[in-house]
Each structure stands twice: as structure tokens, then as C-alpha cells.
């Protein structure tokens, strides 16, 4: 076989599953070293396999210019009507995702071995983490919506498990539940979308050899006009609902900030780098559909843009270091959707990748900081750590610069590409661009605010109890690697600056062939102008931050706008009042008190009482006299004989009458 790994694609997800199973089943008794050895080897191997698979795929693509799809076995099969198989596929988009997932995942595994070293439930943690890797890989490798949905739900489950990892903390379990429930709403949309697609195309495969796949068929359909709600538009919107749930967009973003209850590596891997980008991936994956409905694209763009701005504003004033990063994540995801919405799927995915690097970096550094100051997360109780933990500080700084979008760091290129496409977008492109730009300013502001509060300004923790220390190598090394990546990650797009089309776009071109024409007319010098503007915006944010947070700072009492932002626009409270409260009231007073107690229990008890009553009357036949029993046996025999022989005897006995 020429492509050993590619032909056996299943091996990539299988390895983490094995690791998870081994750790989960036997890990409880093992020392931490063994557990981490299993976990790391499984993920590392799977990373290696991914690399090999990618190499083979590139060779494969050279020969026959199409995605590699291979069905491994039938999972659900209704011959002639429906088939959902365990089919895995590999194309350029998958390549990016797989590499990001396995690579970043591997790094974060390494980091976790250091970070979780002193935590309980070590084996449990790694078992969950590997399981998450498995589901995420299934999600990105899937070749049909059903299998994709399996991964989709699986990562949801793992996220739930890991958010609630410290299940002794009420807040953690609550956060887990919240994440799960909010995601349910999105998943509901996703499922509806799937059903609609199946109803339309009678298939849920992406591409099939006989061109019966969803995308194959959709490609030949006429596109809906703007504002026309055809089947495709509705399907796309439903799918996008799912995306908003998974990728924490308005209005379903509320779970992500709470998800920070989980261990920091989890926040880095799941809630920054990989899982939350699943929505973006899904939208990009079904770009064929989206390009056929401008309306959906427009909605995506608006939602993305709004989320980017909205989350950024909240991020401005948060005091919990991880919360800040969380809102920044939401906002960055908004950028990605903005990119997808305006048709620049390439840019969106590009930003996805770079974001995976620098946001993971930021989270891990934050984790390292928290680690350093002994579990303290409130930035107002930090400060002046620069000299004490240099490595972490530098990495954090790298990440900040990267996210703020200074050249030549990653986000500069990706965010720039997105904003550029937004500027060229047909419908209110300028407005969206403006909002996005303002969000960029905010981004750089709150990030540098974070840096300032954490590393500079005077220390606000008491040196007596907290003795700050640098994290072990197992934590710092991944930080450096990620720092390097977030520096160089964007250089694929380097040529774009000089008017050429960047490598990344070229690489992804075949996947987004359908979306190519919506790229809009590009002109080099306009792009230069815009990128300069972006840099300026970032600088503004930087300067403001430097200006505001310097020397002795203290958490002032918040009022007015600050208070509003600090309380996240009271969104949670609103949801509580509008949705959760009524729901709880209804389920308590109607579903429980009336339906459950009244109807269901009533029925069950009724049946029980009825049978008891019947028994009371019937039991008198049980005289204890064996001969009576014998007669009852006879009655039964008679009935049986009648049933059996009736068809035979009916004509024989009564045939003469008629």
C-alpha cells in the first residue's frame, strides 16, 4: 500500500481513544509518570501519524486533484434510503485542522503534565483530555454530517466533563451544566439543519463518488437572492445556530466565560484553541452551502462582528485574568465568523489557526502565572511579576503582541486579511469594517491592560504567603514553542503584502473554490493602507493601556458604564429572568406537580391499586385444592385446543350447516 497511514486514517483518532481507555480503566492505580507516559505517547503518536498522513495526502493530491475520502464501515444503513458510514476524509481544510488539533493538543498535554502534577484525579484528567482529542479528530476528519455530529457532541461531552473537573466545587459543576445546556440549544439547531439537508438532498455525505453528496448537489443549485429565505438559507441559518452554540457567539456565548472554571490547560485546549473553533470549521466546511445564500452569509457576518465588539467591550474591565482571555476568545471567534461571513473563508481559517497558537499561548502563560502566584486569578492581586518569572512573562508578551496584531506577528496577517475582506464586502462592508477595527483597538487595549496589571505596576499580593516561582520546564517549553509559532504562524500570508496571493490561500483554494469569486476585487495599495490603519489602531490601544495602568493602580469602585460592562451587560441575569426562571417555574409547577405527580405517578399507582384489587377478588380461586388446580389446567388446555384446532375443526364441525 502506497499510503499506509492515509489508507488507515482511523488510526489517528484511534490512538487517543486507546490512551483514554487505558488511562480511564487502569490509570487509577498507576503513578502519575505512567499515566502521563500513556497520554503523551498516544497523542504524540497521533500527531506523528497526522504529519505522515498529511505528507501522503499531498502526494495523493498531486496525482488526482481531489479530496481523499474513504468509507471504513457502515454505521447506520437503510439500503437505498440512507447511509451514515464511518467515512473519514482528508482535504486541505482537514489538514490544517488536524495539524492544529494534534499539534497544539500535544503541546498542551506536555504542559498539563507539569500543571496538573499536584492535582487529584490525574489519570481522570488525561483520560478526558485524550477522549476529547479523539472526538475532535473525528469531528474534523468526518466525511458526513452524522459522523461530524458525533464528534460535535463528543467534544461537548468532554468539555462538560472537564469544566466540571473539580466537581466538588459547586460553581464548577454549575458551569459544566451551563455549557452543556447552552450547547444543547445550538445542537438542536444543528440537528434541524441536518434533517433539512437530508430532506432536501437525501444524503448527508459531504462528497460521494457518484456526486450524490450534499455539497456535490448543492453546488449545482441556483443561489438564493439576498433576503430570500430558500431551503438552503434556512438550512445554513440552522447550522449556524449550532455554530453559535459551539463557538460561543451571540446570543449563546454565555457559557464560555463560566467554562473558565475548568483547569487552565483545558481552557487553553478546548475553550480557546480547538473545540470552540468547531463552529467556524463547520461553517467553512459547508462553505458551498453558505455561498449559495447571501442572507445566511450576511447574518454570519453581522453576528460575528457584533460578538467581536460586544465581547471585547466586556473584556475591557474584567479583573479575572482568565475571564479576560475568555472574552477575548469570544471576540476573536467573532472575527473568524466575520471572515467567513464576508466570504473570506480562507482568512477565517487562517485566523483560526493563528488564534489557536497565540490564544493557547496566552492561556498557558496565564496558567503559568496563576501557578506562580499560587492559584490566584484576580489581576488586582498580582503585579510586578516581570522580574520574577521572565520566561512566562516574555511568552505572555509575545502572545499579547500577536493578538494585538502588530507585524510581523501572526494575528497581524490573519486579522488584516479578515478586515480587508470585510472592507470589500458588498453589504455595509464599511460599517462592519469600522466596528471590527474598533474591536481591534479594544483588543489591544485589554490585552496590554492585562500585561500591565500582571507583570508591571507595583506588586499587590502579600509576599509573605505567596512566594512566586517560575514554572517547571514541562510547562515553559511548550510556551516557547507556541511563542515561536505565534510569531511565525502568520508568515504564510507574507506575499499578500506585496500584492501576491498568499501561500495559505493557495493551499486552501481547492476547498473554497465555490467561495473564490466572493473575495472581491483586491488592490495592493488599498491593502497596504488598511494594514497600516490596523497597526495604528493596535498602537492606540497599546498607548491608552500604558497610559491608564502605570505605577500604583488600584481597583476603583465601578459605576455607570464600567459597572454595566463589569457585569457583562447583565446578560446572565436577563437570561435568568426571561428564560431560565420561567422554565424552572413551569417544570416545577406544571411538569412536576401536575404531570409527574398527577398523571404519571397517578397512572402507576392506579395500575398498582387496580392489580391489587383484582388480586383480592381473584385470589379466592386459589383454594389450595390440587384438584381445582387440575381443573383450571383443563380449562387452559381446552382454550389452547380451541385456539389451535379451530381453523381445522370449524369447517369440519359447521361446514355442513352452510
Amino acid at each position, binding site marked *: 500500500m502506497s499510503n499506509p497511514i492515509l489508507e488507515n486514517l482511523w488510526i489517528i483518532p484511534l490512538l487517543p481513544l486507546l490512551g483514554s481507555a487505558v488511562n480511564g480503566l487502569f490509570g487509577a492505580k498507576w503513578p502519575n509518570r505512567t499515566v502521563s507516559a500513556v497520554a503523551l505517547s498516544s497523542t504524540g503518536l497521533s500527531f506523528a501519524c497526522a504529519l505522515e498522513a498529511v505528507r501522503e495526502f499531498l502526494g495523493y493530491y498531486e496525482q488526482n486533484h481531489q479530496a481523499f475520502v474513504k468509507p471504513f464501515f457502515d454505521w447506520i444503513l437503510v439500503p437505498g434510503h440512507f447511509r451514515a458510514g464511518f467515512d473519514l476524509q482528508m482535504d486541505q481544510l482537514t489538514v490544517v485542522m488536524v495539524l492544529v488539533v494534534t499539534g497544539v493538543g500535544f503541546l498542551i498535554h506536555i504542559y498539563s503534565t507539569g500543571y496538573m502534577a499536584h492535582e487529584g484525579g490525574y489519570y481522570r484528567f488525561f483520560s478526558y483530555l485524550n477522549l476529547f482529542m479523539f472526538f475532535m479528530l473525528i469531528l474534523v476528519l468526518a466525511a458526513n454530517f452524522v459522523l461530524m455530529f458525533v464528534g460535535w457532541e463528543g467534544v461537548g461531552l468532554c468539555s462538560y466533563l472537564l469544566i466540571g473537573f473539580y466537581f466538588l466545587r459547586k460553581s464548577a459543576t454549575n458551569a459544566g451544566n451551563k455549557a452543556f445546556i447552552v450547547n444543547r440549544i445550538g445542537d438542536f439547531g444543528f440537528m434541524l439543519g441536518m434533517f433539512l439537508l437530508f430532506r432536501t438532498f437525501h444524503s448527508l455525505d459531504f462528497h460521494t463518488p457518484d456526486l450524490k453528496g450534499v455539497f456535490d448537489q448543492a453546488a449545482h443549485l441556483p443561489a438564493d437572492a439576498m433576503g430570500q429565505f430558500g431551503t438552503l438559507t434556512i438550512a445554513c441559518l440552522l447550522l449556524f445556530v449550532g455554530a453559535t452554540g459551539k463557538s460561543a457567539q451571540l446570543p449563546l456565548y454565555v457559557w464560555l466565560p463560566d467554562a473558565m472554571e475548568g483547569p487552565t490547560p483545558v481552557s487553553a485546549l478546548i475553550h480557546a484553541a480547538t473545540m470552540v473553533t468547531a463552529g467556524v470549521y463547520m461553517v467553512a466546511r459547508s462553505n458551498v452551502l453558505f455561498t449559495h445564500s447571501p442572507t445566511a452569509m450576511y447574518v454570519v457576518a453581522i453576528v460575528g462582528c457584533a460578538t467581536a465588539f460586544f465581547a471585547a467591550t466586556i473584556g475591557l474591565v474584567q479583573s479575572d485574568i482568565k475571564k479576560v482571555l475568555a472574552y477575548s476568545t469570544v471576540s476573536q471567534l467573532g472575527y473568524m465568523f466575520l471572515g467567513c461571513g464576508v466570504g473570506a473563508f480562507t482568512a477565517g481559517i487562517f485566523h483560526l489557526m493563528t488564534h489557536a497558537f497565540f490564544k493557547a499561548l496566552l492561556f498557558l502563560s496565564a496558567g503559568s502565572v496563576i501557578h506562580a502566584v499560587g492559584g490566584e486569578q484576580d489581576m488586582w492581586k498580582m503585579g510586578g511579576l516581570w522580574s520574577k518569572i521572565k520566561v512566562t512573562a516574555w511568552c505572555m508578551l509575545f502572545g499579547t503582541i500577536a493578538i494585538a496584531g502588530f507585524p510581523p506577528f501572526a494575528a497581524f496577517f490573519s486579522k488584516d486579511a479578515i478586515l480587508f475582506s470585510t472592507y470589500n464586502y458588498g453589504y455595509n462592508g464599511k460599517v462592519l469594517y469600522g466596528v471590527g477595527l474598533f474591536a481591534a483597538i479594544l483588543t489591544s487595549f485589554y490585552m496590554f491592560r492585562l500585561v500591565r496589571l500582571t507583570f508591571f505596576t507595583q506588586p499587590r499580593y502579600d509576599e509573605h504567603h505567596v512566594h512566586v516561582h517560575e514554572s517547571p520546564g514541562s510547562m515553559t517549553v511548550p510556551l516557547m514553542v507556541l511563542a515561536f509559532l505565534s510569531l511565525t504562524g502568520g508568515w504564510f500570508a507574507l506575499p499578500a503584502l506585496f500584492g501576491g496571493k498568499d501561500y495559505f490561500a493557495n493551499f486552501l483554494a481547492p476547498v473554497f473554490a465555490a467561495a473564490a469569486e466572493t473575495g472581491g476585487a483586491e488592490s495592493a495599495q488599498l491593502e497596504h493602507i488598511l494594514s497600516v490603519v490596523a497597526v495604528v489602531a493596535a498602537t492606540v490601544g497599546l498607548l491608552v493601556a500604558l497610559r491608564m495602568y502605570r505605577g500604583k493602580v488600584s481597583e476603583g469602585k465601578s459605576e455607570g458604564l464600567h459597572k454595566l460592562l463589569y457585569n457583562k451587560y447583565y446578560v446572565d441575569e436577563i437570561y435568568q429572568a426571561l428564560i431560565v426562571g420561567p422554565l424552572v417555574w413551569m417544570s416545577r409547577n406544571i411538569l412536576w406537580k401536575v404531570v409527574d405527580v398527577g398523571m404519571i405517578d397517578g397512572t402507576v399507582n392506579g395500575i398498582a391499586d387496580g392489580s391489587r384489587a383484582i388480586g383480592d377478588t381473584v385470589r379466592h380461586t386459589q*383454594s389450595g*385444592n390440587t*384438584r381445582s388446580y387440575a381443573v383450571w389446567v*383443563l380449562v387452559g388446555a*381446552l382454550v389452547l385446543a380451541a385456539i389451535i*384446532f379451530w381453523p381445522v375443526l370449524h369447517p369440519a*364441525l359447521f361446514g355442513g350447516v352452510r
Partner: protein
Amino acid sequence: MSAALVIFFALAALAVIGSISLIIQREPIHSALSLIVVMVALAGLYLLMGAEFVAAVQIIVYGGAIMVLFVFVIMLLNAGEEERTNFSKLATFAGIPLALAVTGFIAAAIVHSSGALPAAMPKGALTDTRTLSTLLFSDFVYPFELTSFMILIAILGAIVLAQREN
């Protein structure tokens, strides 16, 4: 009226009379004896049909083992005349009619459906023991083994029951 028919009717009459006397005898031992008569008569019928092996087994096992057990138990318990109590109203009034009804059903069904059978026995259809045993050990080998297990279990059960008292 061929000789076979004569023998058949003789044996059939013997069997029927035996079973009737099984019912009307009050002494259990007499019932047992009449049942033995029935079994011997049936063995004769098997022979008449040409199923000689079955006939022999019938006598050896039923006559020689099972009924001996019955007689044994009767002796052991020194079972006297049975008292014709009538505590069960149901059995007293409904018993016999129901029994007759079931019998009638079965008989009618047999008479009606046995038209499908070849009217008379194939001439001299003598099942030789070899084919029987071959069948028993080829097609029916699993049932055979199962019955052996079952009888083993039965032996154990009997032993347990017997040992219970001391």
C-alpha cells in the same frame, strides 16, 4: 378381518379396560397393576406396528423401572384405599365434562386431520434398530446428551429428597 386387526382390537380393548380400571380401582396398588397392563398392551401395539425396539424399551423402562418405582412407593407408604372426598366443588361438577370436552376436541381434530396420512400402515414397515440408533446419535445427539444430563440431575434430586429426612 385380518389377524392383525384381531390382535389390534384385543390389545386396544386391554388398554382401554386397563385405563378404566385405573380410574375406578380404589386401591392404589390395583391402579398401578392396571396401568402396567395398559403399558404391556401398548408395547404389544408397538410390536404390531413394527416398532419392536420401542416396544422392548417401553416394557423395560416403563414396566421394569418406572412402574416398579410406583409399586415400591405404594408399598413404602403402605397406601391404603383412597377416600373419595369432594372438597373441590369445581372438580366435582366441572371436572369430568371438561375432560370429555378436551378429549372430544383432540379426537375430532385427529379424525379430521388424519385424512392426510396414508390410510394404512406401510406393509411390514419394520424399523430396524440400527437406523433408529444412527438417527439418535447423529441428528438427535444434542437432545440425547441433554436428556442424559437431565436424568443425572434427576438422580441428584432424588438422592437429596431421600436424604432429607435423616
